[in-house]
């Protein structure tokens, strides 16, 4: 009993010591922590509106409850299936192709020997990530405009094909959106992977070269296995956003063309349209509420699975 008390006292002292020692670091983290609380946690109170018929006159707490009516509307329309299908499938496509492309480019970058060339490539591939989605929308339009677009005027028509009305045909857009997203995001992702790769212990590679390993063998036997934990962590984080979508990508890039809705409606664009057209806060929040809950579940499930298969790579 005495020992336990002493042990606890000792632990407390150590903690106090630690807090004192790391106080400046905690202080550094404080603004971020406060931001997180204000921005990510406080608004959660508003989620109750998903179960209410919001009245501007009565405010959040006094608006009348309407059970799950906001949800039944959501699932009563054909858009529920479309928006969940689109959101999930696009995210899976981004995750799958995005990871392959980013890892591939990161390994290529690692093989570039000239420092100047390496820096130039890094800057160039990062540029699309920094361009506003509205501008990307116009860039895409410059390619796909049915009358003056580059694809119709400079590619299809010179080859003898008829021009395509890109903004009225939904069937092309799953490909267009995936391509645009990959182009936009691969630079940033590959730099994250590249940063991991350059941190690997060089002695592995030196030993492999001594043993006569080819570059391909070095990639498959050293780089990829060492990169696996980073890929897993980034994948779990991406899975957490599985039910979220980049609003600009699905709204600005297809220019909100009605005929493309089947291919471009995601949870976010649906919520926006509902709120903008009807100012219906309850129904918009019902979709947002589902989005958050499902995203949370996916993260928990994925992390649990990773923890079982490879405990060291689990996020928590």
């Amino acid at each position, binding site marked *: 009993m005495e020992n336990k008390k002493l042990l606890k006292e000792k*632990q407390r002292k150590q*903690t106090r010591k630690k807090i004192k020692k790391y106080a400046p670091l905690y202080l550094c983290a404080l603004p971020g922590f406060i931001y997180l*609380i204000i921005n990510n*946690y*406080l*608004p*959660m*109170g*508003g989620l109750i509106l998903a179960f209410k018929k*919001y*009245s*501007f*006159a*009565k*405010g*959040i*707490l*006094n608006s009348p409850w309407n059970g799950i009516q906001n949800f039944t*509307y959501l699932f*009563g*329309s*054909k*858009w529920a299936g479309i928006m969940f299908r689109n959101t999930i499938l696009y995210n899976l496509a981004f995750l799958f192709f995005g990871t392959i492309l980013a890892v591939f480019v990161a390994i290529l970058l690692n093989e570039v020997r000239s420092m100047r060339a390496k820096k130039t490539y890094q800057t160039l591939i990062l540029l699309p990530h920094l361009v506003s989605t509205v501008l990307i929308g116009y860039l895409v*339009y410059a390619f796909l*405009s*049915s*009358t*003056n677009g580059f694809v119709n005027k400079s590619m299809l028509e010179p080859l003898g094909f008829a021009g395509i*009305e890109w*903004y*009225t045909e939904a069937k092309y857009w799953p490909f267009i959106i995936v391509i645009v997203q990959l182009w936009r995001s691969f630079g940033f992702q590959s730099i994250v992977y590249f940063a991991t790769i350059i941190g690997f212990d060089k002695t592995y590679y030196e030993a492999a070269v001594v043993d006569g390993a080819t570059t391909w063998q070095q990639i498959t036997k050293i780089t990829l296995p060492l990169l696996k934990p980073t890929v897993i962590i980034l994948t779990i984080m991406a899975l957490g956003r599985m039910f979220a979508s980049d609003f600009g990508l699905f709204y600005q890039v297809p*220019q909100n*063309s*009605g*005929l493309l*809705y*089947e291919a471009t409606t995601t949870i976010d664009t649906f919520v926006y*349209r*509902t709120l*903008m*057209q*009807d*100012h*219906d806060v309850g*129904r918009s929040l019902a979709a947002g509420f589902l989005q958050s809950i499902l995203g949370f579940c996916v993260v928990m499930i994925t992390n649990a699975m990773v923890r079982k298969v490879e405990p060291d790579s689990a996020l928590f």
Partner: protein
Amino acid sequence: MKKKAIAWVLTAVIALSCCGCGSTGDNAGAASDGTQAAATEAGGAAENGGALTEVSSDPSEWPVVSIQVPALTDLPDEPIVEDALNEYLVSINAGVKANLVQSSFGDLANQLTLMLSDNQNPLDLFCWRFYSTLDGCVKNEQCIPLDGYMEEYSDMWAIFPENVLKTQQIGGVQYAVPSVDSYGTYEVYNLQKDIAEELGIADRDGERITKEEMTQIMKNVVEKHPEMAAMINTNDEPFIGIDTFGNSNWLGVLLNRGVGTTEVVNLYETQEWRDYCYMMKDWADAGIFIDDPLNNELTISQYNNGIAAGCFLGGYSADYIKALIAYSPYESVQFQLTDLVGTSSSVLGGWMISTVCKNPDAAMKMLYLMTMDENVARIMILGVEGVHYTVDEKGIARRPEGVTQATSTWNQDCPWFYPNQCLSIPLETEMTTYYTDMLDAPNHAQFSEAMGFVFDSTPVYDQMAACTTVVAQYRDALLYGLVDVDSYLEKFNEELKAAGIDDIIAAEQEQFDAWRAAQ
């Protein structure tokens, strides 16, 4: 220890979240209290006649009413105009003062939605035009009933024809003060004069033409000038010939603009709509539209920039329409397309008192002054005389030397947004009868059978939302002739049926019949 620390952090987060909820709740509670107080006051006003009875002798104690003012760009002179307005209000012992709140048209939906739920800095007076509909604002409880103010401000209500006042009522309850206007318009095809001269039709200015003649004129325009379009937008209700009950998605309409007909129909199933779609396809194939209409801005600026040679315009008289387009760099001729008709959508805006307003009596007094007091209306519409405009010998307002529409520091271009533009004077036009003719126009107009009817969409709320999405998906492509009419129209109608358009039309017909029976 680690677990304990995490537990503490989580507790703190949850506690803070709860504080957030609590504070939101308090605000909401306050909002509710405020609203209830407002509602009670309004109710009280109904009983007492709604008078702002006691006016303090000290203007600094007067209630300040915040009023939405339309802004196309930032208005740097807002404080000057506000001061001038308040100075005038003090001079007439109005008992209320004004706080002008700029609202940009580009961001109206976000801005107004936030302001109308802000109990701390409430927006007291606002206009539903461009933001929502009367029905939408009432359904979302964003405005209060004005019935309690009928007696006290009877002279204000009397300036409106009865069927105009009814356009701002739901279930017999008055929710808004309509904006004074001509309440009826006819449509013209407006064409650049030099192109009309080239085609040898400039001397037909003002002539009435058929749709077929108009189509031929536009085809001739693009044949002579293939670099130009001949039309901008085709989303034109008068030209299509419908009374839409104010619903921009046309979910249930009266044909013939509601003149002599009381049958609510599904426009998208009618032969008239099918023919219109064929005509649009014909226009598209002839190159009459601007390139990629779904991806381009379809506004009058395309005409003013010389991208389109012509466009639809609407107004109550030929002179008025000419005055409307006088600012354009191009002189124009107009060909009349329709009769002068007033529909349920002809009252384009209505002024409301918000539910977050803390002093509805004061707000109503201010709304009364905006509608009835010439000086108040003119200061808000034109700014300060001598600073933002001068008045010439004909009684026309002129901008100061070197100042244009784009460089003016007060927005003088939206007189129609305010409750009573006719109290102001015309700006930068030669038409001295601009407003007097406007007041006379209803005497020459035909009116839709539905003039004054407002559809309460509450019983078919879900169907309206579902059909709105279907319309957003299909209609524009048909309006700009981008798709095969037969196949798309079939799909469009199938989806509308599945979304419940028949329920909407049945509800509209039922309410419309009941409304007519009550007249």
